C-alpha cells in the first residue's frame, strides 16, 4: 500500500453567510477554482497531472448542482483532461472527499488528487435541495426525524451538558480563534479571495466575535425551543426514541452553535511517486480513515464510533493523539467527545472552530484538516485526529501523522 501524503492545504477566509458577507458576491465555483489555482501556483503543478478533483458540497442545487466539481475544474487553470466528482456526506463532505482520494491513493498507482469542498451558504440556502429523510413519511416517521438543533439539544439533555457548559465552551472557542489570528497561526493555509479584477475581497475570517463573554451569551434565546415545544413539536418526536427523558433542555442558540458562513478549502494529496518528480515536500500522511452510521434521531453522535474505528485501524489509543479537530457543529458535540474519550480540553480545537469561525458545510472537513496540518507543524506535534458529525446520523474521522 502506498502512503497517502498531504502536500499542501489551503482554505479561504470564512465570510459571513449572508448578503452582508464579504464573499457573498462571488460564486461557489469561483472561490473553489481560486483555491485550486492557489494549489497549482504554490506547488508549480502542471495543469494536467491530477487524477481527479473530488469536491464536497452539502447543498447540490443551483450553482452548486450539476456536478459542481467538473464546473470548478473547467473554471480553474487545470487542464480539461482532469475530471471532477462531487460528493455529499453533508457536514463531513470536505473530509470525505480527502478520504476518498486517500483510499484510491492507497490502492497504488502513481497518482495525485485535489480534494476539498465548498459551501456558499449566503447564496444557496441550507436545506434548499430537499431531503427525503425529512419529509418522506416512510423515512421521517420511521426514523423519528428531527432537525439537527433538536438532536444537539437532545445530546446535551442526555449527557447533562447545561446551558452554562455550552456557553463556556463557546466563549473559549472565540478566545482561541482570536488568539490564533493574533498569532497568525493560519498563515500557511489561508489564501485571500479576489474578484475577477484581482482586487482582494477577503483575507481574514469575519465571523468571529472575540468580545463574546458569558453575559453576552446569556442574553440569547434558545434557537430550537419553539419548534421543539411548540409547532410542530419535534421534542415529542425525539422522545419517541428517548422515552426515558421527560423533556428536552433547549440549550443551543446562535452563540454556541456553528456559524453560517461562506468558504472553500482544497487539499493536495498524492503518493510519493506523484510528489517526488514535482519536488513536493509532504507535510503529513493519512494513517487511517473511518465512516459510520449512527442512531439518526440523536443524529450527531457519529464522531464517537468513527473515532473508535479510525483509531483501531491506525492501531492507536486515544492517548496517542496529540491534537483533535472535532467539528463544533454545536457546543454539545466537542463536549460529548471530551466526555466520552476523557481527552484534555487543551488538545481539542485549539485554534477555535465552527462556533467562532463558521461552518461552511461542504468545506469544513477540509478546513479542519488544513488547520490540523498547520498546527502539527507549528506546535511540533506528531498525530492529529479530525472528526465531524453528520446529518442523518453519520460520522467521519481521519487520523494523520506529521511527516
Amino acid at each position, binding site marked *: 500500500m502506498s502512503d497517502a501524503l498531504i502536500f499542501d492545504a489551503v482554505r479561504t477566509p470564512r465570510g459571513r453567510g449572508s448578503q452582508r458577507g464579504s464573499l457573498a458576491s462571488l460564486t461557489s465555483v469561483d472561490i473553489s477554482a481560486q483555491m485550486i489555482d492557489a494549489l497549482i501556483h504554490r506547488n508549480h503543478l502542471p495543469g494536467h497531472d491530477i487524477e481527479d478533483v473530488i469536491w464536497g458540497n452539502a447543498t447540490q442545487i443551483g450553482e452548486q448542482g450539476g456536478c459542481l466539481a467538473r464546473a470548478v475544474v473547467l473554471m480553474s487553470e487545470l487542464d480539461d483532461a482532469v475530471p471532477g466528482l462531487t460528493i455529499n456526506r453533508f457536514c463531513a463532505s470536505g473530509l470525505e472527499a480527502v478520504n476518498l482520494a486517500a483510499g484510491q491513493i492507497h490502492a497504488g498507482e502513481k497518482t495525485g488528487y485535489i480534494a476539498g469542498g465548498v459551501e456558499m451558504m449566503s447564496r444557496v440556502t441550507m436545506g434548499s435541495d430537499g431531503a427525503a429523510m425529512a419529509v418522506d*413519511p416512510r423515512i421521517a416517521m420511521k426514523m423519528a*426525524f428531527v432537525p439537527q438543533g433538536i438532536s444537539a439539544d437532545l445530546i446535551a439533555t442526555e449527557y447533562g451538558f447545561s446551558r452554562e457548559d455550552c456557553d463556556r465552551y463557546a466563549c473559549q472557542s472565540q478566545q482561541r480563534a482570536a488568539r490564533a489570528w493574533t498569532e497568525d497561526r493560519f498563515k500557511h493555509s489561508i489564501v485571500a479571495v479576489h474578484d475577477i479584477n484581482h482586487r482582494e475581497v477577503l483575507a481574514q475570517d469575519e465571523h468571529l466575535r472575540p468580545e463574546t463573554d458569558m453575559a453576552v451569551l446569556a442574553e440569547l434565546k434558545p434557537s430550537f425551543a419553539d419548534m421543539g415545544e411548540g409547532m410542530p413539536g419535534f421534542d415529542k*418526536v425525539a422522545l419517541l426514541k428517548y422515552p426515558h*427523558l*421527560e423533556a428536552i433542555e433547549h440549550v443551543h442558540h446562535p452563540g454556541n452553535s456553528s456559524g453560517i458562513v461562506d468558504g472553500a478549502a482544497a487539499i493536495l494529496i498524492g503518493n510519493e511517486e506523484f510528489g517526488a518528480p514535482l519536488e513536493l515536500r509532504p507535510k503529513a500522511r493519512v494513517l487511517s480513515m473511518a465512516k459510520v452510521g449512527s442512531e439518526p434521531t440523536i443524529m450527531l453522535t457519529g464522531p464517537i464510533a468513527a473515532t473508535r474505528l479510525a483509531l483501531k485501524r491506525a492501531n492507536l489509543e486515544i492517548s496517542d493523539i496529540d491534537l483533535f479537530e472535532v467539528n463544533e457543529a454545536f457546543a454539545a458535540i466537542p463536549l460529548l467527545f471530551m466526555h466520552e474519550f476523557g481527552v484534555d480540553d487543551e488538545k481539542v480545537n485549539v485554534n477555535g472552530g465552527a462556533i467562532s469561525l463558521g461552518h461552511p458545510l461542504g468545506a469544513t472537513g477540509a478546513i479542519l484538516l488544513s488547520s490540523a496540518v498547520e498546527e502539527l507543524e507549528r506546535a511540533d506535534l506528531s498525530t492529529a485526529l479530525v472528526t465531524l458529525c453528520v446529518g442523518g446520523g453519520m460520522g467521519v474521522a481521519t487520523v494523520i501523522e506529521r511527516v
Partner: protein
Amino acid sequence: MSDFHYQKEADGIAVISWDVAGARINTMTRESLRELASHFDSAFSDGKVRGVVLTSAKKDFSGGMALDTFHQIRGQEPTEEADALFAHIMEFHQIIRRIEWAGRELKSGRSGKPVIAALPGTAVGIGYEIPLACHRIIAAKNPKARIGLPEIKVGLFPAAGGTARLIRRLGIEGAAPLMLKGTLLSPEKALAANLIDAVAEPDELIEKAKEWALGAEPEDIVKPWDRKGYRMPGGTPYSSKGYLSFMGACAMVSGNTSGVYPAVNAMMSAIYEGAQVPFDTALKVEARWFSKLLMEASSLNMLQTLFLDTKALEKGARRPATIKKSELKKIGVVGAGMMGSGIALVSAQAGLEVVLIDQDLNAASRGKGKIEKLLAAQVKRRRVAESETRHILERIKPSQEYETLSGADFVIEAVYENPALKGEVLARIDRSVDCMIASNTSTLPISDLAKSCQTPSTFLGVHFFSPVDRMRLVEIIRGKETDDAAVALAIDFVSRIQKTPIVVNDARFFYANRCVIPYLNEGIRMVGEGVRPPLIENVARQCGMPVGPLQLVDETSIELAVSIAKATKSALGADYGHNDADEVIFKLASLGRLGRKSKAGFFEYSETGHRLRLWHGLGVYFPEATPQPNAEKVRNRLLMIQALEAVRALEEGVLTDVREGNVGAILGWGFAPWSGGPFGWLDGLIANQSVLSLCDDLSRQFGERFVAPKLLVDKATRREKFSVH
C-alpha cells in the same frame, strides 16, 4: 336490485338518485358502484342528455362505504391478495374517473357533459369522494348535514380518490388536516372551506343544480388537475413552502400518534408520493397504500371495534330480544353531584323529562347550576345551539321531594360512594316509585345494594364515566337477581341518550375499573422498582394510552388509591398478598402528596393546579435502577397487565361478549385504540404465536400476575382468536 333511479327529464338533464331500498342511509358497495357507472354511461352516450345531476332520494346523500364489506374484500382471494385488492380498488378509481371525464375524449375532441352532485344532506367517505370527482358540488342548507372524509377514525383512509383529489383541490396544507382528523363540516362551513362549490335552499337544490348544468361552459367541465399546466395549490412536498410544511406535518403526526396507527402512516405516504406525480399515477399510489393497509393483520381491528361492534352494541346487539322496547319519557336522578348532574344533562338533551333530587332544594339547584355551566361550555364548543339550551334546562326540575319521582320510567341513584348512604337513598326511591331503579356506582357490588330494594329483579347498576357529557360508554351491571326486562330498559335508556352500552355481570370493579386499576398499579410498581418515571409515562402514551398511569393516579387522587388498596386488602384478607405498588402510594400519601387536588403527587403542580413536571423526589425515595428496562418491556407490561385482566373478566363470566370487552376498553378507559381493544391486541399476539412466551417472560420476571389464564392458554394453543370476525 337497483340502488339508483335514473330519470331523463324534459330539459335534457338526467337525474340519478341514489336510493338503496330498505336502508336508512345510502352506503356504497362494488355492485352499487357498477350500477352507478352504467347509469352515467347511459347519460354520456345519450345524445339528448345535456348534463347529469347526481343526488339522493333520501334525506342524506350517503354515509360512505358499506364498511362491513372490507372483510369480504380481504377474504376473497387470499392467495393473490395483493393483486386482488389492488384490482378491486383500481376498478373503483376507473369508474369514478369515468364520471370525472364525463364522456370527454381527447383524440376526437369530443367534449364531456356537465356532472353536478346535489347533496341534500350528509355526504361522507366515498359519499363525498364521488362528488369530488363531479364538476361541481352543491349542497342543501341543511344544518344537520355533515360533509367530509372521516375514514381515519375507523382505521382507514380515503382511498376512492379522496387523498388524490382533496390535496389537489385544497392543497396539502388545507386537505391533510381534514383527513388526518376526519373532520366533518356543515354545508355552510364546507363551502367556506372550499369542500363544496355552492349551497342552496333545500327545496331549490335540484333546480339550482340543473341551472348550473344547463349553463356550464366547456372549461367548467374539466377538472383543474386535468387541465394543462395545473399546479397544486400551496406546492408539492419539494416546493420551498411545501417542504417545510410537510416536514412539520410528519413531525406533528408522529408526535400525536407515535406511529402506532398504520392508516395514518399509509395516508401520509399516499399524500406525499401522490402529490409528486400526475393525477392518474396518484390514484395508483393511493390504491397501492390502501391495499397494503387492508392486508396488515391489525388494520381491520380498529374498524371492527370502533365502527362495526360499537354500532352493533348501540343498536342493541346485547338487548334481550323478547322484551318490548320501552319509550322513556321521564326519569329521576337522585344525587345532584358531578355524576348526577351529568346524567341529568345528557338525559334532558335526549328530550327526557328529568327530576333531579338532592337532600335539599339548595343542593338540587346547585346541581342544576353545574348543568348550566356544562351547557355553556358545550355552546362555546358549538356542540349545542344556544337557542336549544333553554328547552334543555326547562326539562330538568330540581327538587328535594321524592314524591316528584312519581310517573318516572327509570330512576338512577347517583349519591356518594358510601354503601350506607346509597342503601338508605335506594330504599327511599324504592318506596316512592314502582319503575326500574339503577345505582350509578363504580365500586360497590350491585347485588349488595339490591338488598335495599323490595324487588331486586328490577334493580341494576349503571356505571357512567366522568365527565358524563363527554364519555360515550355506560357499563350496565346485572346483579344476581336482575331480570332481562331491567337490562332491556337500561339499554333502551343508554341508546336514547346516544351512548354505548355494555352489559357485564356483578363482580368487584365490574369490567372497566377492574382493568384500569392493574394498569395504574403496574406503573406505580415500576416507580418502586426504580424505573425512570418519564419512561413509564412516555411509553404509556406512546403505546396509545391517553394518559400515563402516574398522571392518572394523580388525577383520580392518591388518597383514593390508598383507600382502594386498603378496602381491597380487607375484602380479600390473606389472599391479598404483597403488592409493591402499595409501598409507593403509602409513601406519597404519608408525605401529603395526595395527587392533583393537593397540588402534589407523582407530579409537581403550580399554585393554580397546572401540571408542571414529574416530582424529582421520586428518585430520592425510589432510586433509579441500573440497567433500565427498554421501552418495549415497559410497553408489554403496561398493555399485558390490562389485557390479562380483561381475559380473566371473560373467563369468570363478568364479561360475556368479546365485542363488549374491546369496545368497553377503548371507550371506557382509552385502551390503545389502534389495537381494536385488548382482545384485538391479544389476537395479534396469538396469530404470531408470541403471546404465551411473552406471558412466561413477564411472569418469571415480574410475578404471577402475568401468568396466562387458562382461557388464553387454550386459545393460544389452538391458535384461535378471541374475536369472532
